C-alpha cells in the first residue's frame, strides 16, 4: 500500500487538537525546566571556578609539603620562602601570574568582645591579576603596602558597625605559636561576590601580615594563573619539578580542581542532572504515551480498515510514531525556546541567592547570571525529541499487533 505516512501523521495531529496541545505542553514544560536547570548549573560551575581561582586557590597552589597534613593546627610556620620560590615558579613556561598570600584565623577586638574573622595577607599589586579589587571596593580605597591598613568585607563591616576611617585591633596566633595583636585602620569596604567573603574576611597588606604573624619573607601559599592553551595539571607538574630541581624543595603543588571537592561534586552533579533530565522527559512523555494509546483505541476500526486495505504492521507503527514525534518536536521546540527566553531574561536581571546562601559555606556568588548556551539548547531540544519519540514507540507497536478482523468489529 502506498501512502504518504508523514502527511497522514501530520494531519492526524489536528483531529483532536486540544489533546495534541496537551501532550506538546507536557513535553514543553519538561524541556523548559531542563533547559533552565542546566543553564543554572553551568552558571554555578563557571561562577564557582572563577571564584575559586580568584579568591581561594588560584589555578595552581604551591604550599609547604607538610602544610596539608597539619592544616587543622594552623601551622603558619610551615611556609614557603617568597624570595626563592616565586621567581622559580614565575619562570616556568605557561605561568601567567603569581602571587603570595597568607590566610590566617583572627579575631577583631571590639567592645571587649572578640569577633572571629579570616585574615588574608595579600600583595595588592601582584594580586591584581587574580582579584579585581578596584571593582569590588564600594567605599574608600585599597590598603597601601607598609601601612597598618585594612580592607573589610561589606557584610562584616555592617555587622560590626565599622566604616572607612575606623580603627580595629586584630588578635591572632603567630607562626611562632604565640599570640600578637595589631591595630589597623579601615581604608576600604569591599563587596565580594561570595557572601562568606563579605561576611568574614579582612584583607591586609602582605608585609603587615608577615610582621603580625612573625613570618618575615614567608608566605603560607603562592598562587599561580596559567596562560591560555596550557593545561593546569601539566603546568603544576612542571612547577613542582622546577622547585625540586632548582631549589631541592619538595612542595605541595596542585591544580585547583584537585583542591576543591565541592567543585568536583558540582561536576558530578551535572551528570546527575542529565539523568534527572531524562526522568523528567519520561514523566512528560507519559502524557504523549497516554494520548497515543487513546488514539489507537479510538481509531481501532480505522486501523482495521487500513490493515484490510493492505497496510503493513510496521507502517502502522511508523504512522503513530510519526504522529508522536511531530508532537514531540513541537513541544521540545516550544519548551526550549521558552527556556532560552527565561535564561536570557535571568542573564540580564540575575538570580539573587543572598538570603538562601547566607550561612552556606560555598564558593558560589550570591547573585548568579546564567547565560544562554546554544549548545545546551540544542542538546536539550534533541534530547527531548529523542526521549519523547521513543516513548511513543511503546504504544505505537501495539497498533501493529492488532488483529484486523477484531479491529473491524470494534465499536
Amino acid at each position, binding site marked *: 500500500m502506498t501512502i504518504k505516512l508523514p502527511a497522514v501523521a501530520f494531519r492526524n495531529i489536528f483531529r483532536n487538537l486540544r489533546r495534541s496541545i496537551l501532550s506538546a505542553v507536557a513535553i514543553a514544560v519538561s524541556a523548559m525546566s531542563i533547559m533552565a536547570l542546566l543553564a543554572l548549573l553551568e552558571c554555578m560551575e563557571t561562577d564557582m571556578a572563577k571564584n575559586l581561582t580568584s579568591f581561594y586557590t588560584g589555578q595552581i597552589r604551591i604550599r609547604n609539603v607538610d602544610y596539608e597534613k*597539619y592544616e587543622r*593546627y594552623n*601551622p603558619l*610556620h610551615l611556609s614557603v620562602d617568597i624570595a626563592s620560590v616565586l621567581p622559580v615558579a614565575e619562570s616556568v613556561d605557561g605561568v601567567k601570574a603569581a602571587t603570595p598570600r597568607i590566610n590566617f584565623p583572627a579575631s577583631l*577586638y571590639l567592645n*571587649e568582645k*572578640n569577633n572571629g574573622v579570616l585574615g588574608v595577607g595579600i600583595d595588592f599589586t601582584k594580586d591584581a591579576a587574580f582579584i579585581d579589587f578596584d571593582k569590588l571596593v564600594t567605599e574608600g580605597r585599597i590598603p597601601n603596602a607598609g601601612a*597598618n591598613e585594612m580592607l573589610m568585607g561589606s557584610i562584616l563591616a555592617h555587622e560590626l558597625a565599622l566604616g572607612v576611617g575606623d*580603627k580595629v*585591633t586584630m*588578635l591572632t*596566633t*603567630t607562626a*611562632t*605559636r*604565640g*599570640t*600578637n*595583636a*595589631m*591595630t589597623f585602620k579601615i581604608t576600604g569596604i569591599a563587596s565580594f561576590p561570595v557572601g562568606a567573603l563579605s561576611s568574614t574576611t579582612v584583607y591586609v597588606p602582605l608585609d603587615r601580615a608577615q*610582621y*603580625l604573624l*612573625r613570618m618575615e619573607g614567608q608566605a603560607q601559599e603562592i598562587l599561580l594563573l596559567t596562560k591560555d592553551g596550557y593545561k593546569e595539571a601539566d603546568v603544576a607538574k612542571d612547577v613542582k619539578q622546577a622547585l625540586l630541581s632548582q631549589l631541592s624543595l619538595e612542595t605541595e603543588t596542585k591544580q585547583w580542581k584537585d583542591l576543591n571537592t565541592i567543585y568536583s561534586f558540582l561536576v558530578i552533579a551535572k551528570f546527575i542532572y542529565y539523568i534527572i533530565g531524562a526522568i523528567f522527559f519520561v514523566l512528560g512523555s507519559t502524557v504523549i504515551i497516554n494520548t497515543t494509546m487513546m488514539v489507537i483505541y479510538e481509531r481501532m476500526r480505522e486501523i482495521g480498515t487500513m490493515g484490510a486495505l493492505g497496510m503493513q504492521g510496521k507502517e502502522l507503527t511508523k504512522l503513530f510514531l510519526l504522529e508522536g514525534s511531530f508532537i514531540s518536536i513541537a513541544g521540545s521546540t516550544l519548551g526550549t525556546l521558552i527556556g532560552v527566553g527565561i535564561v536570557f531574561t535571568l542573564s540580564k536581571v540575575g538570580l539573587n541567592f543572598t538570603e538562601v546562601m547566607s550561612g552556606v559555606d560555598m564558593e558560589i556568588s550570591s547573585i548568579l547570571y546564567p547565560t544562554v548556551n546554544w549548545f545546551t539548547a540544542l542538546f536539550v531540544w534533541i534530547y527531548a525529541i529523542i526521549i519523547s519519540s521513543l516513548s511513543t514507540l511503546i504504544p505505537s507497536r501495539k497498533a501493529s499487533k492488532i488483529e484486523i478482523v477484531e479491529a473491524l468489529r470494534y465499536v
Partner: protein
Amino acid sequence: MSKKILTLLFALILLILPSTLFAITAEEIVKSMDALATYDTSYSTGSIQTTDRFGTKESTFKAWTKGTSESLIEFTSTAERGQKILRTKGSLYLYYPDAEELIRLQGAALRQSVLGSDLSYEDMTEEKTTLNDYTVTLDGSEVYNGHDCYILTLTAKTRQVAYPIQKVWVDKETYVTWKGEYSTSQGRLLKNMEVLSVMQVADRTIPKETKIDDAMKQDSSTMMTFDTLQINVSLDANLFSLENLTW
C-alpha cells in the same frame, strides 16, 4: 584509785593529746600553701618551654607580683618582646606593642592558652585565695618522689573556677605542691602538674621547675622555670595600673 593507775592514765593522755590538739586541718594546709605562693611583693625572671608536635619553643619573661591578686608579666623573648599580661583584682589585660588598645580578657577567654603553651592566662596569674573558691578535704598521706605529702581534694564552691576538682600532693614540711591533678566535676582529667625541682628563697621553698601537661592537647607539655626570684622588693606604686601598662 591507786597512784599507779593515775600515773598511767596521765601518761596516756599526754600521748594522745598532741595528735588531737595539734593535728593540722586541711584548711590550714591550704592556707600554708597559699601563703608560700603569696608575697608582699616579688620580682622574678624565667622561661616557658613548650614542646608540641612541631618541636620545642622557649619564651622568656619577667614578672612582678603584689599580694594575692596583682601580677604583671612581661615577655622578653624575640617573638613576643614587649607583650604584657596584667592581672588586677577581677580583671586581666593583655598589652601588645603594636595594638593601640588593651585587650581585656574575661570569662572563658581566661582559659585560653598563653603563647600556645599548656598554661592558661588564669594559671599564670591566678589569685592565691583557694579557700574562697574551694572546699577542701584531707584524703591521707603518701610519699611522692621521696617527699612525705598530704593528699588533698579541693572541690569548687562556684562554677567560676577553671578546675572544678583539684587533687594535690602537698609536702608536709615545706608545703610545696609537688603534684596536682586538675579535673572537671565529672572527674575528666584536664591538666597534670608536677614540680621537678625547688629553690630556697629567704626561708621559703619555692618551685623552680614545673611541668604542666594539658590532657586536652596531644603530644604537648610545658616546662615553666624560674631563673631568679626576689621577694619583698620595692615596686613602683603604679606598676599594676593600666597607665603603666601602655607606657
